[in-house]
């Protein structure tokens, strides 16, 4: 997993609440047995005028010019500004895979759906929760100023706006540590292998029917 430290990125606004994982990456792309290459199909149904298929090249497809990510001013965006309950719906990790593959490294919203939120951290994608009023202000500013960028400092837990104003955010220390160091959860957990084995041995005595 790629380390996350300081990001200075162009911001793109996704101005609707309850953006679900079916919208982020439609189901036909879930048939893949790979975990890369989903970026061109991020928000597929909103981004293109025709319907995408997993085995269909995307280069010559009809773009929906009105869709926010198709506007030239947001090309190369790395920060996605969103509304409440972003990522609701299914547990598909294809959603953060698609966002990451597209080039996003951080997401800002008043709230995220839980499974999606957790999935982001496993893929070097930082979801930041800010107050609804602050997010609302950011939406106004992004729309008003082309080329609007934010600096996100994970170590200091601060988002800095172009005018120098800073917005602090919360993050679990353990998740922060893993993201800063690009650590693999499984490797970390296996340091506790002995504890897991002991727990399991006790469980076998207490509830043997679970191990039939």
């Amino acid at each position: 997993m790629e380390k996350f430290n300081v990001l200075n990125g162009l911001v793109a606004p996704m101005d609707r609440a309850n953006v679900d994982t079916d919208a982020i990456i439609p189901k036909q792309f879930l048939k893949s047995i790979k975990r890369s290459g989903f970026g061109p199909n991020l928000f597929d149904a909103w981004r293109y005028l025709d319907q995408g298929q997993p085995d269909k090249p995307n280069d010559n497809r009809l773009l929906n010019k009105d869709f926010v990510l198709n506007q030239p001013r947001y090309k190369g965006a790395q920060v996605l500004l969103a509304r409440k309950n972003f990522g609701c719906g299914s547990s598909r990790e294809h959603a953060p895979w698609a966002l990451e593959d597209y080039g996003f490294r951080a997401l800002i919203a008043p709230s995220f759906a839980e499974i999606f939120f957790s999935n982001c951290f496993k893929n070097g994608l930082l979801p930041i929760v800010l107050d609804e009023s602050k997010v609302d202000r950011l939406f106004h500013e992004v729309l008003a100023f082309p080329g609007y960028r934010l600096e996100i400092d994970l170590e200091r837990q601060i988002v800095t706006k172009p005018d120098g104003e800073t917005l602090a955010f919360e993050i679990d220390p353990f998740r922060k540590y893993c993201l800063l160091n690009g650590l693999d959860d499984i490797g970390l957990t296996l340091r506790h292998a002995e504890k897991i084995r002991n727990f399991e041995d006790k469980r076998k005595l207490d509830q043997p029917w679970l191990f039939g």
Partner: protein
Amino acid sequence: MTPQTLYDKLWDSHVVHVEDDGTTLLYVDRHLVHEVTSPQAFEGLKLSRRKLWRISANVATADHNVPTTDRKLGISDAVSRLQVETLDANCREHGIVEFGMNDPRQGIVHVMGPEQGVILPGMTVVCGDSHTSTHGAFACLAFGIGTSEVEHALATQCLLQKKSRNMLVQVEGALPRGVTAKDLALAIIGRIGTAGGTGYALELGGGTLRALSMEGRMTLCNMAIEAGARAGIIAVDDTTIEYLKGRPYAPTGQMWSRAVDYWRTLTSDVHAKFDRVVQIDAGTIKPQVTWGTSPEMVVAIDDRVPDPDREKDGVRREGIERALVYMGLEPNTPMTAIRLDKVFIGSCTNSRIEDLRAAASMVRGKRVAPNIRLALVVPGSGLVKAQAEREGLDRIFRDSGFEWREPGCSMCLGMNEDQLQSGERCASTSNRNFEGRQGAGGRTHLVSPEMAAAAAIAGHFVDVRQWR
């Protein structure tokens, strides 16, 4: 001792290790595996040369991609076929029990699991599928995980979790005639919203719940995720134990008695503290229909499509306007005036035997309306299908003009051929009415099996309380 909630008990009994910030290594008793969210996890294991921690904790089935028509022909879509074959190969390689596409026990993972007795009270149950919350009906701590966590569970038999807060939804009173667990689930979501349960483990309790069958309880817990709660939980009672008795993977003999003694303790203590309590009067609930593109966009059948002009909040108003455009609906239209093109009875929410019986009772001796292009019944598993056929339900459906299919997720998410065409409107017993969920441009209205069946006959939504 401090009184504990059921969630507290389930959590505490699975803690292996706690980090300084409260991040907890939680032991996983049962891992359900399906073809869509597992291939990258198995690939990850292979690349890092890691082994499965406890093979017998895993049970697999193919459900999302499988065709619901004649299985002898195999899967025609090459990409889907590869995914199902990859699951078969991974299970074979690691020795995981799998109910493959042609096994009579194959079915939707959340129907197959309880049916086989691989889900037992007090377990932690995980699966790379958000509707894993279903298994909370058995007093399990059950929740959906992403593929990285699938790999983590396979390799370590644990997951890194933060404890949620406790919410209790207390439902009292009898559900009126024609009102089901599905209507209760939709009414709860309508009340607390699709993010209302975010950050909470949602226990469902009260007299109404005690009177529900396990099928009804599974429907409710299944929809907990649509209220934002990763897990829904219901305490153990006689109904739970009765359901489990004699299931293939349930304990027997002395072990059974020992297990039952433990299972009886799986309830919230009388004075347990919840962070939030929501009271619901079951007697006031009417049959529900969603009108929009989020499960919280729901009204009673005798109500109308909402008018965005009456919404004061800007983001919400835009949400309503956008949903109405997508759904092709005019504000203030009576719900009973909405005409349909397709009807889908199935999914991990409503494809169990009780659901099929309820739907069949609505359509017996009647015909599907001419404007309905397709009315599908997709049983949740091969065993549900066989049971329904023994009871003659397949005949009732077929005689009425429904198609009777093979088990799988089918048109709930349309990963196989069962899809809506753009603009088609469907009464569906599934769980999500998101844009494009059942097919690009498709329009989904979530309802109970009774409501879907009656709508198929009438050609539009009807109030099942006045049916017949």
